[in-house]
């Protein structure tokens, strides 16, 4: 009764599942992952890397062009742009990270509850999410700033609330599909609790989708937070932050000193593109693998 003939074995990707996932995204995906990795490292150690002080002004050097160690020159207050970029990476990356984590956790929770309970619970959750869709993130952030005062925490929380319906909408579909699979029914018949099935089976099986969503959302969050900081409602000067840098250096553009603002803008654009590319590739992979 036992099989005497060896099966053609499915080879596990070398280096584990994560590496295999990455390989599947192609050259563009790998390049994007490299960019993101570099930005993360800078975000973690940034302030220590900065060769010059990112916050001490020296008006005598305002808008002086690139010389020697000052690769991008000086900004409107005579601070070294490169140092400010490196120091600013922290808040520029941390903010979106908080937004993404918040949106994912709450969104996944609501999606799984809606998918598991179905019926009335699903209807109520879905309708509430539909209402939330009506509020653009920036509008919520402005309201939050008005109520709680400007700053990164308020901005991040309001964006997380604004993004959460998108996450929930996508994940609800995938969770519903998993929930109707026979293996979930088998576990129910076995008497496994709803929590256990959702956490140990449904969430892991929609995880590729969650990861793909996370990377896409990070890019959006970064742009939105930069815009909020640009409006003066997010990170407050003189703290270093790429969005703030665009705002405070924009006076230099018509004066013929575009470099500080553009450099900050370029950093944002590069990271957002990297996240978008990686996110889309991962998403395609997640779809293809089903």
């Amino acid at each position, binding site marked *: *009764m*036992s*099989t*005497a*003939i060896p099966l*053609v074995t499915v*080879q596990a990707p070398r280096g584990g599942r994560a590496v295999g996932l990455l390989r599947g995204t192609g050259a563009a995906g790998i390049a994007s992952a490299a960019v993101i990795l570099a930005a993360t490292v800078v975000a973690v150690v940034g302030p220590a890397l900065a060769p010059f002080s990112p916050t001490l002004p020296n008006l005598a050097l305002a808008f002086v062009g690139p010389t020697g160690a000052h690769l991008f020159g000086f900004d409107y207050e005579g601070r070294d742009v490169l140092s400010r970029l490196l120091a600013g990476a922290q808040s520029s990356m941390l903010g979106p990270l908080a937004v993404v984590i918040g949106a994912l956790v709450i969104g996944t929770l609501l999606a799984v509850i809606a998918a598991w309970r179905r019926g009335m619970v699903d209807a109520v959750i879905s309708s509430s999410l539909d209402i939330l869709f009506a509020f653009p993130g920036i509008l919520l952030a402005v309201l939050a700033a008005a109520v709680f005062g400007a700053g990164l925490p308020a901005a991040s929380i309001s964006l997380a609330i604004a993004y959460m319906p998108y996450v929930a909408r996508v994940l609800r579909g995938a969770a519903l599909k998993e929930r109707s699979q026979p293996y979930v029914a088998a576990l129910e018949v076995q008497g496994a609790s709803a929590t256990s099935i959702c956490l140990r089976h449904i969430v892991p099986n929609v995880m590729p989708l969650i990861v793909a969503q996370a990377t896409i959302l990070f890019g959006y969050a970064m742009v939105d937070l930069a815009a909020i900081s640009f409006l003066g409602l997010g990170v407050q000067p003189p703290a270093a932050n790429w969005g703030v840098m665009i705002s405070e250096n924009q006076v230099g553009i018509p004066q013929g000193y575009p470099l500080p603002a553009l450099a900050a803008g370029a950093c944002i654009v590069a990271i957002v593109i990297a996240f978008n590319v990686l996110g889309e590739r991962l998403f395609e992979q997640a779809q293809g693998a089903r």
Partner: protein
Amino acid sequence: MGRWVGPGSREASTAPLLEVDGLTVRLRVEGAQRAVLRDVSLAVRPGEALGLVGESGSGKSMTARAIDRLLPRGAEVSGQIRFDGADVMTLAGAGLRGYRNGVAMIFQDPRAHVNPVRRIGDFMTEALRTNLDVPAGEAYRRAADMLGQVGIDDGERRLRQYPHELSGGMLQRVMIAAALLTEPKLLLADEPTTALDVTTQAEVMAILDDLRREFGLAMLFITHDLELAAAICDRTAVMYAGQIVEVRESALLHDDPLHPYTAALAAARPDIAQTAHRLAAIPGRPLSAFEAPEDECAFAPRCPHARDICREATPELIGLDGGLSRCARAADLRGRLRPELAEGGQSDD
């Protein structure tokens, strides 16, 4: 009416309508080119029904797709397929269109092969209107008539319906009717009744059989069910691991097979008329062509009759008693492959 009357199976000329000659197909499987069909040869005469039986990985569906030129991109094909003397693989343009009219395929899952947002009538008359330039009115009339032939009354109303309004059995009957509209010479039926209830299956099989004889069509009927193939096919071919291992007159196949695999397949099936203490199960599992050893008999590892001679080389197809067998010991084992039937008792393990 446009009914095409072809030669009946008895008066058929012996020149085959469809000839598959040494067909070998390789596909890219997990990074390497692997064989899914190995040296497949078969012939279908005009008006004749040939059954093609096999389990998973046997290559039966792949053979049908090769004949219908539906192989995936990047497939390496060697050998020839000839229809009415013409090389199928090199057909193009008008020749290919003529081929598609001459060979009609019926698939296992009708819903997957029908556009759900178009009406039945559109689907059925499409080939007539585009390939054969039949005016729309005439095409719809013929379609309604053909629906009647397959046992669907009220044809005009049905033609205006959408696929989701019909049950699986009805839709499959519609597919058969659609296939017959282009007056093909050969029907390629790939597991047409596998997804249907057994009573619906019996009905659809009866319709297929009736119409085939009435229109004098040849048929290649693909299935995993040995008894089903024997029911409406004159001859049956059995495939294993991408190769043809036996071809035999259907009436003789079940009780007097020429290859141990056929015998094992027939014996493994439970009997509706009696309970066996244990079924005669074949150890191991069915292999695909690329998993099977290349220089010995593919079935040898699982065969109760295997001897050294079976592992020396891949056996050739040899003629025996009007049939063909790819067993190195076919002559020795002749008549002895189903001993339990001779004794008239139940199979013991």
